[in-house]
């Protein structure tokens, strides 16, 4: 049976924790609004980009001239997984669910006898995956110093990936991130980015296009840019998802702390009452004995 002082201390400490989680929730809510607008503003660009690319690619027959970013290297032996997670924890299952998706993917590929290489964007994913895939992780990209995600970060990562692709280090690249659906729903997603996935549009394929400069030349500049856009978009979606996940995790924590305080206060009051009753009984029985 803890003493009254112990209970008082415990209640005070839970109250302090509750204040912190409450503050974190509010901070996450404020950040979420910004991240969400950024993610939603980036969507039109990425969508137009893939529809333009779709238009362009549907008019092209795959041949030896086709850029390798679109046609692939012709094999799928080496896979690169780009795992985007957060730099910070305390955001519920956000980091671990992305990492789990990537891990399942990696183990499946390895069981098939493929070589797997991993690039981690964000420290948390690295911490989780390091235990199992220490040999496979080839790079950790740290975005902790970045305050406001910009196109430059997407470009930086894309350049690194492209350089490795040019050097023939891998055949297929898959991007792992969490798509932001709403504050309570973030969907861990795997998206293949090399070779580019083209969705068939089929709507305007009958129109004859003029190309300036040549079709192939446009395609060679458009494909790397598409990569950058997709990565940038993943980063933004991730940022919004992270804040959403943190907000609901902290909301839960605050509520749990509230419940705990209620329970502890109840126990505290009960034992105080019991003590008083006990003292009264002692006095009364003492008086009766006389």
């Amino acid at each position, binding site marked *: 049976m803890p003493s009254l002082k112990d209970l008082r201390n415990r209640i005070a400490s839970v109250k302090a924790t509750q204040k912190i989680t409450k503050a974190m929730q509010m901070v996450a809510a404020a950040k979420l609004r910004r991240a969400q607008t*950024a993610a939603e*503003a*980036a969507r*039109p*660009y990425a969508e*137009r*980009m893939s529809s*333009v690319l779709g*238009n*362009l690619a549907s008019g092209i027959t795959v041949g030896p001239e086709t850029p390798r970013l679109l046609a692939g290297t012709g094999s799928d032996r080496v896979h690169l997984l780009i795992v985007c997670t957060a730099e910070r924890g305390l955001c519920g299952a956000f980091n671990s669910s992305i990492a789990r998706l990537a891990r399942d993917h990696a183990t499946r590929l390895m069981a098939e006898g493929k070589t797997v290489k991993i690039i981690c964007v964000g420290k948390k994913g690295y911490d989780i995956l390091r235990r199992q895939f220490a040999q496979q992780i080839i790079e950790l990209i740290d975005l902790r110093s970045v305050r406001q995600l*910009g*196109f430059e970060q*997407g470009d930086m990562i894309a350049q690194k990936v492209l350089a490795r692709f040019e050097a023939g280090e891998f055949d297929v690249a898959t991007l792992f991130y969490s798509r932001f659906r709403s504050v309570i729903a973030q969907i861990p997603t795997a998206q293949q980015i090399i070779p580019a996935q083209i969705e068939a549009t089929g709507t*305007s394929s009958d*129109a*004859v*296009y*003029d*190309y*300036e*400069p040549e079709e192939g*030349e*446009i395609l060679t*500049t*458009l494909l790397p*840019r598409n990569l950058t*856009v997709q990565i*940038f978009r993943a980063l933004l979606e991730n940022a919004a998802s992270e804040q959403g996940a943190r907000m609901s995790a902290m909301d839960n924590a605050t509520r749990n702390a509230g419940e705990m305080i209620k329970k502890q206060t109840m126990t505290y009051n009960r034992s105080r009452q019991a003590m008083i009753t006990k003292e009264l009984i002692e006095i009364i029985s003492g008086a009766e004995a006389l």
Partner: protein
Amino acid sequence: MATFNFELVSPERVLFSGDVDAVVLPATEGDMTVLAGHAPTMTALKTGFLVITNTPGNGRRILVRGGFADINQNGLTVLAERALPAEELTQEILDHEILQAEMAYDATNEPAAKHAAESAVAQLREAKAALNF
């Protein structure tokens, strides 16, 4: 005058969406004006000013750096890698852009990329002169 639908999107936001009379694009092969009923065309863009005209004699200028324009029967879509409306431009932003372009020029050895970076620097300098900084 016939109008057509025009959209200008950069990775960060949608800068313009609506009906316009004419748009002048800084295409890689030379500036081109797009009017309603233009043939379906896809073109790459270089650094330069894009001019939007909604009413005759009234243009809005936006500095774009690289990107693509897609003209089809639904209208014109410009995907700009970077887009800055002229009214938001300041000397610091332009100086920063020029510095970046110069760095891109120094960083590459490919003739094509070198040429592109060189023309970007020239365009940005011109823009700076045009805005009287």
